[in-house]
């Protein structure tokens, strides 16, 4: 559970990090989104969870101007944010399909019923948002040979940038696909570092 002091600390760190980020990485997504490292994703998230998509429901908003999708999730593991397994939360995202009309926000995460992923979430459990747009979602797949769960590289993410010989900034390879237990250990380590 995030306390007021940790929240205040987090907000302060947010400002510092925003300034730091503004000075370095500016890779683009479908829309143009600043790249976030795993450390930054962990720090900006109220919750880091492994979750399974139970349902995705899209509808026009109350003004019938935009399509919104509500994604119901079952928590499998909570790495940050302290929630029991099987706890239910929901993510709200702009975009979706209703009656043959799709609204697509380029660069936003997309969810499919039944899929399992690692999610970096902010906001209330009833209407959480994914941190860093598609960067805050790491799809999971089970390796057929070993049976281990693998966390895919985040969709549309370039986690860091490095200058090419001409001095231009280009994305280094995104945080690569890696076994879920390795990612879990890294997130827990980063989370505990931030808590100190």
């Amino acid at each position, binding site marked *: 559970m995030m306390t007021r002091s940790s929240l205040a600390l987090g907000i302060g760190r947010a400002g510092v990090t925003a300034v730091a980020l503004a000075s370095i990485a500016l890779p683009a997504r479908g829309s143009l989104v*600043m790249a976030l490292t795993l450390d930054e994703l962990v720090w900006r998230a109220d919750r880091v969870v492994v979750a399974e998509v139970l349902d995705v429901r899209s509808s026009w908003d109350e003004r019938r101007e*935009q399509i919104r999708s509500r994604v119901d999730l079952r928590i499998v593991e909570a790495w940050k944010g302290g929630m029991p397994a099987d706890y239910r939360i929901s993510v709200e995202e702009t975009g979706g399909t209703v009656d043959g009309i799709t609204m697509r926000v380029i660069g936003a995460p997309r969810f499919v019923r039944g899929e399992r992923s690692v999610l970096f979430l902010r906001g209330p459990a009833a209407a959480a948002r994914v941190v860093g747009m598609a960067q805050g979602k790491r799809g999971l797949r089970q390796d057929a040979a070993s049976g281990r769960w693998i966390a895919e590289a985040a*969709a549309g993410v370039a986690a860091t940038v490095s200058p090419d010989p001409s001095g231009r900034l280009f994305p280094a390879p995104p945080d690569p696909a890696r076994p879920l237990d390795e990612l879990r250990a890294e997130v827990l380590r980063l989370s505990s570092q931030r808590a100190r």
Partner: protein
Amino acid sequence: MRRRASAPVRRWAVVVAARATILTSAAAIAATAAPAPAHGYARFRSDSGTPMRWFESCVFITPSTNPSPDLTADQIAATARSSLDVWDRDTLACTYLDLKVLAPSPDASFVRADGVNSLVFRQARWCREPARTSGQGDDCYDPSALALTSVFLRNRPGDPEDGRILDSDVEVNGVNFRWSNIPDGGDPGGQAQDLANTLTHEFGHLIGLDHTCYTGGAAARPTDHTGNGVPDCAAASPDVRSTTMFASTGRGDLDKRTLEPDDQLAVCETYPIANDPARCVGVDLDGGDGCSTAGGGAGSAGGLWAVAATAALALAATRARRLRPRGRRQRTSL
């Protein structure tokens, strides 16, 4: 609801259609001058895999009247115009695509399916405007997003209009980032993003183009126009990296202001002049082609553009009114 064009506009449409026919032979010649690809380009696709595109000859972009802290509304409109021009038939003889920036309007402050393709600078809040009523969750965008492009499209497998772009809006984050026209000396501190660089890339998305490289992860790798998967961004060749639709930019980057051969080929093949629909005001959100008012595919003059623009704004305003809630009203069939 299908709207009928007025008699003068219909006559104009006939004239312009005739001009388009005459110019078709010239188009064939121009098409042969299409740029040779370096590698490939990719397009957004509907769920059935149909590439997305506009069905009209022309697309109107309307800047909102919000200025940014560093740029006036007029400067933003001028930058939008120059960023659109590089994708336009006036620059590329192989395409019929006619892209125009209309006068700034308060109607363009919203991202919604209203037929107004908005360019909005957000500077007070990096959030949806107007805010939703309370108790309906967070309406604010991720602060890491510099700019967002939202697209409405028909997405119905088997429908002849599957993949048709209906509305597209671009929002720029003026809350967390500074914007400028760097070549004009607008960034003495070296801390700003070049607006034209960003808008040229975003307008590529607006006309239906995907990135020229794959950024990894669970999302499907886009296929290029030859049917092959696009290369990984991290391993992309310099040619691919230099494209406007490459998925990366850096602060101070100006290279995306101009198109590379792959970007040009994308426009030439998606909107080839030989296939000009000769229709400018076309999207009827109630279904069907709607207003068959305008040609404009070839040779349209400024005065005719004004007529088309006026018609577009009037139609958009009507749609906007229709789509807003009025107590108990019938659901609009999109």
